[in-house]
Every structure is written in structure tokens, then in C-alpha cells.
């Protein structure tokens, strides 16, 4: 065997050994094998380094430099993005998180824990709420200006539009939290139980107290109302659900609102600033009737998330001429009408 052959054999052996070693290291260890890549255990969330990623405040009462629509919108987008990353990671980690494939996952009657499906539902809801809200730096189109003028009879007022969109932004903030908690439960193998917000102001501390329903507010409906097309079935469910449900009489509230005069989340309307649970126009009826979950204590996570995703807006309902389901009242908020609260509530929740 000459020197060249020997050298070739040695090279082949070394190459095979190195390849085998690298393969074993890749399969069984977290040693970084590519330059510039950190070990798996030291990796932080997202593709960006921890210092460059935006800070996400998950507090129920976020600590914002300015409590404004723009700040809340930005936080809602950050929370939605973080939830989207977490859902993607959970899928890649082979956790049972269903792919939407254009349809929302079915959870009712399905075997096994549904926390992965809840996270997907929450992400779908957060996406929808962000999409329906008004980006702070957006410029209204000519069509939007005309539509606003026809609707209100006045010139375009961005604060009114932001008032309507505020309910969606708050919903995105809340539902993103639910989605993240669902993923925590998924990884821990526990069942998701809702952590209720404060009914009066969902951006207060969590609703750890129970207080009677506000006299002038909507009442929570049975979650069966989420299915707009199944009016007959809804009526049957509603009749059964009204019997002996003691949770219907109370709402969750933060300690501050429960102890003193509640400080509700105010939404700007044409009639001035009114609590969100009294507004109706172009807002999802589930926000008012369930108080983002704080007023529907008998609902579980599935009920609330499905209602977030499937319940229609007041205006959409009127456009369809629908006669069933929640939030049938249209037009400007009931608070602007002054009298007739009881009748309006009956109409809105029939």
C-alpha cells in the first residue's frame, strides 16, 4: 500500500468519524453546530434576540406610558404576535395544536384535552379583532369618510371611530391572554379555567370579586346564542339555561371596583363617553353581554372563545334582518337614548 492510498484511507476514516460525531451531536445534544447559532436551551423566543424584541406587557392592567388608543393598539398587536409565535412553536414542538386550515377547530364533543384548540381559537379571535380595529396611523379612505358622513350626518371624527374600535382592541388584549394561558395548560397537562377580567373595566386588575349585575347593563346570554342560524335551538337552550343559574346574578369585578364606585371603560360615542357595556353600534354583542367573560360566569373557555369568534356585530345583525341571537339593537348606543333601558335590553338579548 503506497503512501497515497494510506492517506486516502485515513482521510476517509476521519471524514466518516467526524460526520458520525456531528450527526450524533445534532441528534442527542444541544451543542451549537452552526456558527452564530446559540444552543437550544439558551435560545429566546422568536427570531430576534431578547434585547431587540418588543416588550410585551401581559399584566391585566398594563403599565403604559400613556393610556391612549394608540398605545393599547400597539400592545394588542404585540400580544397577538407573541401568541402567534407561541402557537407556531407549540405546533413545531409536536404538541396537539390543530391547524386551522381555513376552518376553526371543533372542540365540542372531541376526545382529549382541547387546550391546543383553544389557543388556535384565541389566535383567530385576536387576529380578527386586530383586523377590525383601526390602526392609529391609518388615513381614512374616501369611502370611509362618506360612510361616516352618511351614518352620523357630520364630518369625520377619528375619536368616534377609535371609540368603536377600542372594544375590539380590548378584546384582542384579553383573548391573547386566554390563548397564552391555554398553551400553559397544554404544556402542563391541566385544564384551562378562565381568569375573569373586571366587568367594569377589562384593563383593571383581574375580577377576583363578585358584585351584582349593574342595573343598566346587558345580561349575559346562554352561549348557545352564538349560533346565529340556529334560532330554534337557541330558544330551547335559553329556556333551560335560565333555570337555577346563580352565576347569572353576579359579575366579576376587580377589588377596587367592587369596593367603591366602579370606574368603567369609557367609549367615545356621539352622545359622549359611555361605558363600553352600554354601546352597541358596530361592536360585537359578546363584549357587552358577557363583559369579556366577566359577566358570563357560567361560560367555560369554549363558550367564551366561540362567542368571541362567531358572534356578530350589532350592525351586521340588522343588515341581515336576523331575528334571533344576541345584540339585535342597532344604531347609536343605548346610553345616548336616555330612557327605555329595560326595553332596549330586552330587545338586545331576546
Amino acid at each position: 500500500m503506497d503512501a497515497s492510498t494510506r492517506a486516502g484511507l485515513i482521510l476517509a476514516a476521519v471524514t466518516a468519524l467526524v460526520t458520525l460525531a456531528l450527526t450524533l451531536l445534532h441528534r442527542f445534544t444541544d451543542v451549537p453546530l452552526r456558527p452564530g447559532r446559540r444552543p437550544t436551551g439558551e435560545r429566546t423566543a422568536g427570531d430576534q434576540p431578547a434585547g431587540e424584541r418588543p416588550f410585551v406587557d401581559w399584566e391585566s392592567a398594563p403599565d403604559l406610558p400613556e393610556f391612549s388608543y394608540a398605545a393599547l393598539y400597539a400592545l394588542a398587536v404585540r400580544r397577538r404576535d407573541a401568541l402567534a409565535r407561541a402557537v407556531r412553536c407549540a405546533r413545531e414542538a409536536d404538541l396537539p395544536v390543530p391547524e386551522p386550515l381555513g376552518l376553526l377547530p371543533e372542540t365540542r364533543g372531541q376526545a382529549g384535552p382541547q387546550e391546543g384548540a383553544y389557543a388556535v381559537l384565541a389566535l383567530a379571535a385576536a387576529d380578527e379583532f386586530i383586523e377590525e380595529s383601526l390602526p392609529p396611523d391609518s388615513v381614512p379612505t374616501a369611502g370611509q369618510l362618506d360612510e361616516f358622513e352618511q351614518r352620523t350626518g357630520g364630518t369625520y371624527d377619528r375619536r368616534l371611530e377609535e371609540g368603536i374600535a377600542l372594544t375590539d382592541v380590548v378584546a384582542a388584549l384579553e383573548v391573547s391572554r386566554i390563548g397564552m394561558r391555554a398553551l400553559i395548560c397544554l404544556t402542563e397537562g391541566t385544564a384551562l379555567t378562565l381568569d375573569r377580567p373586571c366587568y367594569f373595566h377589562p384593563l383593571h386588575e383581574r375580577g377576583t370579586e363578585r358584585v351584582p349585575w349593574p342595573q343598566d347593563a346587558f345580561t349575559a346570554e346562554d352561549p348557545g346564542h352564538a349560533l346565529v342560524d340556529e334560532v330554534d335551538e337557541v330558544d330551547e337552550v335559553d329556556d333551560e339555561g335560565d333555570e337555577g343559574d346563580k352565576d347569572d346574578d353576579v359579575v366579576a369585578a376587580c377589588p377596587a371596583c367592587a369596593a367603591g364606585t366602579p370606574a368603567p371603560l369609557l367609549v367615545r360615542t356621539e352622545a359622549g363617553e359611555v361605558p363600553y357595556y352600554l354601546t352597541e353600534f358596530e361592536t360585537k354583542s359578546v363584549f357587552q353581554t358577557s363583559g369579556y367573560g366577566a359577566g358570563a360566569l357560567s361560560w367555560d373557555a369554549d363558550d367564551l372563545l366561540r362567542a368571541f369568534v362567531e358572534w356578530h356585530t350589532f350592525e351586521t345583525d340588522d343588515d341581515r334582518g336576523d331575528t334571533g341571537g344576541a345584540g339585535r339593537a342597532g344604531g347609536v348606543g343605548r346610553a345616548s337614548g336616555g330612557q327605555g333601558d329595560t326595553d332596549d335590553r330586552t330587545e338586545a338579548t331576546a
Partner: protein
Amino acid sequence: MSTVDWSRALAGLPLGLLLVPLLLHPLALLTVRLVRRRPLPPPRSRRRARAELDALLGEFAARGGTPSRAQGPPAP
């Protein structure tokens, strides 16, 4: 009498130091798992995704995502 090429022999030292931990460490891990009949670890992509998920959920918990205190019983 054969002569030893000491430059080549010394070059084998760092090569050996490099190959031994590279090869023996993962082989030892694999052997231990096989002997103990434990399942193989998930692929690196799954481990990375899981670590990223844990980091996100950890941030969520650390930045106020989990309830600060357990929900008490409903007020009468």
C-alpha cells in the same frame, strides 16, 4: 530501525483531543439511553421549538400573565 516522524505524531494529539469528546460524548449518551431503555430524545427542531415556547410562556408568566393571586370565593 525505523524512525519516528515526531511532527506527525504530535499532530495526532490535538486531533485525538478533538475527536474523543466529539465522538465519545454523544455515543455515551446514546449508549446510556439504550441500556436504560429510555426513549430517544425528540429531534433538535422539536427541542428548539419547545425551548422557544417555554421561553415565551415564561415571559408571559413573568410579566403578569398568570393571576397574581388565586380567585377567591364569590362574594355573597
